Structure formats: C-alpha cells, structure tokens
C-alpha cells in the first residue's frame, strides 16, 4: 500500500512536468494509433475480401478489358458457382476532388456474391427495375447527401460523355469494416450506351468476379480458368480477391512503409522524452533512494519505485491517448470523405497503442531504475535532492 502511495505521490510531485510528459504520451499514442489506422485502411479491401471470390483480369494489365463471351466459358469451369462482370467507371462527380469509386456491375449476379452489402428489399427491387438506377453506400450517401430518388450526374473519363443515374438504393455494410463508400450501376446500361457511342468498346469487361463453391480449390480453379484463355488475344490472370486487392496495396507500398516507419518514430521520440523525464526524476531523488536503502529497503524496491512511476505515467498517457483516438479517427474519417472507404480503429491497433505505451514506460525506467538501485548509500546521502 505504502509502495503504491509512494508511486502515486511521486508521480504527482512535479505536476507540470508529469502533465507535459502525459500530454506528450497522449499525442504520441494518438498519432501512432491514427497512423496505424491509416495503414489498416490501406489494407481494408484485402481484409474484406472473401475466400470464395476470385477475380479474373487481363493478364497484361488491369487497364485492358476482356471480351464478354469469356463469361460463359468461365461459368462452365467445374467448381465455379457464379460469375459477375464489373468495370471501373472512373467518372467525375461535380469536381475531380470529389472522388468515389464507381463500378458498372452485373447487378443480379454481383450482389449475390457480396452478401456484406445489405439492401432494403424494396429499394433493391427498384434498382434492379431501373436500367439507369444506381446504388450508393451509406458512407458515400452521407458524404455527399445522396438520397433515394436523387439524380446523380457523372462526367465520364474512361467512358466519355455525360452520364445520369438515379439513386434507387442505399446499401449498408454488414460490419463496420465493410466498404460503404462505393457506387454501383448496371453493367448493361454502360454496355448499351457504349454500343451507341463507341461501338468498338462494347461487350468489353474490366474484371470478372467469380464465386467458387470450395475456397480450398481456389488455386486449382484459377489455373483452370486461365488455361481456358491461354494463347488467346486476351489472356487472363485469375487470383483470389485478397491477392487482387493486395496488388493495389503493393503499388503504393512505399507510402505504407513510410507511414509505418513514421508511426514507430513517433513512439521512439516519446520514449526519449519519457526516458529523460525519468532520468531527471531519479537523479533528483538519489538521496531519497539512498535513505530508503539505508532503512533496509532492497535495491529492487527502489528500482520498482522508478519503474512503477514510469508505468503509471505511461498508463495514463496510453489510456487517454487510446480514448482520444476514437473521436479523432471519426473526425478524420469525416474530413477525408471517401478517400479511406473504411477507417476503423481496430482492436489490434488499440492493443498496439497500449503495448507501445507500456513498452515506453518500461524502457524509460530501465536506466534510471538501475541507477537508483545501484546507488551507493553513502554517495546517495551526499547527493543534493
């Protein structure tokens, strides 16, 4: 009891110093958490991938399409349960800065494969009935104020011309980490329009999303699919949805690595600050530690006092930092709009934040604690407190 009392009162002895150290810890833990969440957001697509979904694309590059008739061949491969078509649309809503992903999809098939997108049945039926209908995710709808019945105009870039859609449904995510920042509309509408405007670009598919019956056979089925189109004009590359998503992450891997490094640098900086605080603290109290040892307290007790104080400060900073992360992340997510489709502070991030605070608390106390424990009593008693 006396031990905990000493730790608590020592920690509050220099309120300004302790307060500033805690503030530094809060900022570091918060920054670390936010940066880790940004990294997590980068991987959100891969993390949300389902093991029973494969993606088939043109083997040369994603920018090259594949003929529509591949769909029937893919469907005929044993183990394939369902095939959907999807094209990246890349239109501009009002301003290029107002970016959000838009896909033309084979709606009836596609949404059967993505049960994590939840619709109100009535809205879904209305969407399927309307050839120019569109569905938007809840986050996207909230970002730009889209409501069912609204007209949604887009200016085409990949598919030229002005396009107009009617929002028929707003989908919800089955989980908090489900991406609800996307817009979908009918692939048939895109294809028919292209037939009129640029006929040579009709019946071209960006990717086929393939649902398979047994995820354990994904490698085998991928090979079988690609074998169908070997030596054709558009050879294919089939991979799991997760691998497909990770391919996008790999394109920006340097940024992700940079963010990761910065997040750990932040922790290292606060470690140096905290270690300095604890070193000053231990130096100032050498005569007290010597007195305790003279009274019969073991060196370990003295070291534990330093460690306990360091851990107490780190724990407060860590907990407040974690507590601040959630509202700040929510604010950050709002400010960045649909840049990060999923911006969720994960349990793993929270654990890492607390772990980092704990590690800082321990590491910062190592040398000062050792010094306090090893101080010769006669030298410590001579020290000026």
């Amino acid at each position: 009891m006396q031990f905990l009392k000493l730790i608590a009162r020592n920690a509050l002895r220099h309120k300004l110093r302790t307060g500033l150290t805690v503030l530094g810890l809060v900022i570091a833990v918060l920054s670390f958490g936010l940066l880790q969440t940004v990294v997590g957001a980068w991987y959100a697509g891969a993390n949300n991938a389902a093991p029973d979904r494969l993606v088939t694309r043109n083997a040369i590059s994603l920018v090259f399409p594949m003929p529509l008739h591949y769909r029937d061949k893919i469907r005929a491969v044993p183990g394939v349960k369902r095939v959907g078509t999807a094209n990246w649309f890349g239109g501009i809503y009002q301003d290029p800065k107002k970016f959000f992903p838009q896909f033309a999809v084979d709606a009836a098939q596609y949404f059967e494969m993505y049960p994590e997108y939840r619709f109100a049945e009535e809205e879904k039926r209305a969407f399927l009935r309307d050839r120019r209908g569109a569905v938007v995710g809840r986050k996207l709808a909230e970002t730009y104020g889209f409501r069912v019945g609204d007209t949604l105009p887009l200016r085409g870039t990949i598919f030229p011309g002005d396009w107009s859609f009617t929002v028929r449904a707003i989908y919800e995510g089955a989980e908090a980490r489900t991406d609800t920042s996307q817009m979908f509309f009918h692939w048939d509408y895109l294809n028919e329009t292209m037939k009129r405007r640029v006929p040579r670009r009709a019946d071209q598919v960006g990717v086929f999303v393939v649902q398979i019956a047994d995820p354990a056979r994904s490698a085998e089925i991928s090979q079988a699919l690609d074998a169908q189109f070997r030596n054709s004009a558009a050879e294919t590359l089939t991979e799991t949805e997760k691998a497909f998503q990770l391919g996008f992450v790999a394109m920006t891997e340097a940024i992700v690595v940079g963010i990761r490094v910065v997040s750990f640098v932040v922790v290292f900086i606060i470690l140096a600050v905290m270690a300095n605080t604890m070193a000053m603290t231990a130096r100032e109290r050498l005569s007290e530690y010597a007195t305790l040892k003279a009274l019969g307290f073991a060196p370990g007790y003295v070291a534990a006092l330093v460690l306990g104080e360091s851990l107490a400060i780190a724990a407060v900073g860590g907990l407040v930092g974690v507590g601040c992360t959630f509202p700040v992340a929510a604010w950050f997510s709002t400010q960045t709009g649909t840049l990060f489709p999923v911006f969720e502070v994960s349990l793993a991030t929270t654990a890492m934040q607390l772990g980092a605070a704990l590690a800082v608390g321990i590491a910062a106390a190592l040398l000062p604690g050792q010094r306090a424990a090893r101080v010769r009593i006669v030298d410590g008693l001579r020290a000026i407190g």
Partner: protein
Amino acid sequence: MSRRVSSTLIEVRGVSKSYRRGGQVVAVLHGLSFDVQRGDFLGLMGPSGSGKSTLLNLLAGIDKPDAGAILVDGVDITVLPESDLADWRATSVGFVFQFYNLMPVLTAFENVELPLTLTPLSRRERREHVAAALRLVGLADRAEHYPSELSGGQQQRVAIARALVTDPKLIVADEPTGDLDRQSAAEVLSLLEQLNVQFGKTIVMVTHDRRAAEHAHAIKYLDKGELSEGADLLERSVR
C-alpha cells in the same frame, strides 16, 4: 535509573578505510579498534575530513571497511552479503541524518511507518507503534503534516521517531543538530538523551558541536583517521 553498561554492543577491530579521489587513494581511517558498550551514548568528534562520518557509516552498515571487522551484538557486519545487511539495518539500526532525509511526499505518520512496512506487523500494530513513537517525540498532533509543513526541529523529531519505531539496538546520528537553531537543537539532543537514559538505546552521534557532545557520556576524538594520541584518556564521562 541505573546507567551501568552491562556488555559490549559494538566491537571495532583494526578497521581501515580509504577512498579513491582523482586517481589517488586517500586513507580515511587507519586500523581503528575500540568498543561501544550496550546502552552507551558515544559522541564522535573531530575536524572536517577526520573520518568520523565514515566511521559512523561503517558502524551503521551502509559502507564497508577495506580491512578489519565490526561486530555488532556479535554479528560481523563487514562480511554480511548486501541483502542480509539491508535486513540487518532494518531491524538493528535507526538513522538520524543531518538533513532529516524524510520522504517529502509522505506525512509525518507515513514517514515513521515506512521502516515498519519491512516488518511482519499488521496494519493496526504498525499504527499503534507509529502513534507511540510520535507521542514520544511530542508530535502526535502533527501526524498528518507533510515535512514541508514542519519546522526543522520538528522534522528532526519525526526522523528520530522513524529511527526508534523499529526498536533498534543502535541509533546512529550524523550531525543531528547541524541544521537546527539552538532551541531546536536542544530539544533534539534532549530527546536523544531521553532515548538513551529512559529506553537504554545505544547511540553513536557524530557532531562538531561541543555543546551537543556534552549530552554524550563518552566522546572519541578522531583526527586524520586515527583516534588521537591518548584517546582513551580523552574518553570521558560528562555526567
């Protein structure tokens, strides 16, 4: 009350101590040998640098000699391992320092209780012991005060209460009045004398102050690390 010394508490045998300063070895104590009787109140005097604080540290087991032996109640404390020595100090020695050395974040009560937390006493027993010690030093009404809320004399009395609360065989005091005004010094010395006379505590006190030394009933003079020529003759009773 009889002050007859019944047996030897401390036996110092051929104790030498030197320090290394700036690459040079400075001998502080040279082969000292003397006894301190149980219930004695010994004053150690001498000029600055004579080695009296060093000798006190050795007697209290917070420093070790280079040579020689120090037996306290039959235990050679110079050969005890550090952990055993810490246990020995906790049970056998009470410390009174020149600058009190109280924990500033603990109240007077908690400071006095501190050494008792190393004992198996229950919380209730500890409280009783602390209350008794504070009553003895006349600070029962200051139990909840922090050191910064007490005068120098009061802080030293708290330190004395802390020194005696474990009922040690030996109390060592290093310039206990060195930081006090005359009146506070007189109160502290009177308290130490009371502990010696009334409770039979063996006290070894380092002091520069001849007035303080008069409260001891034996004095040893140290000069250049040696008990000065005819030291035994200088040992004198002041009562």
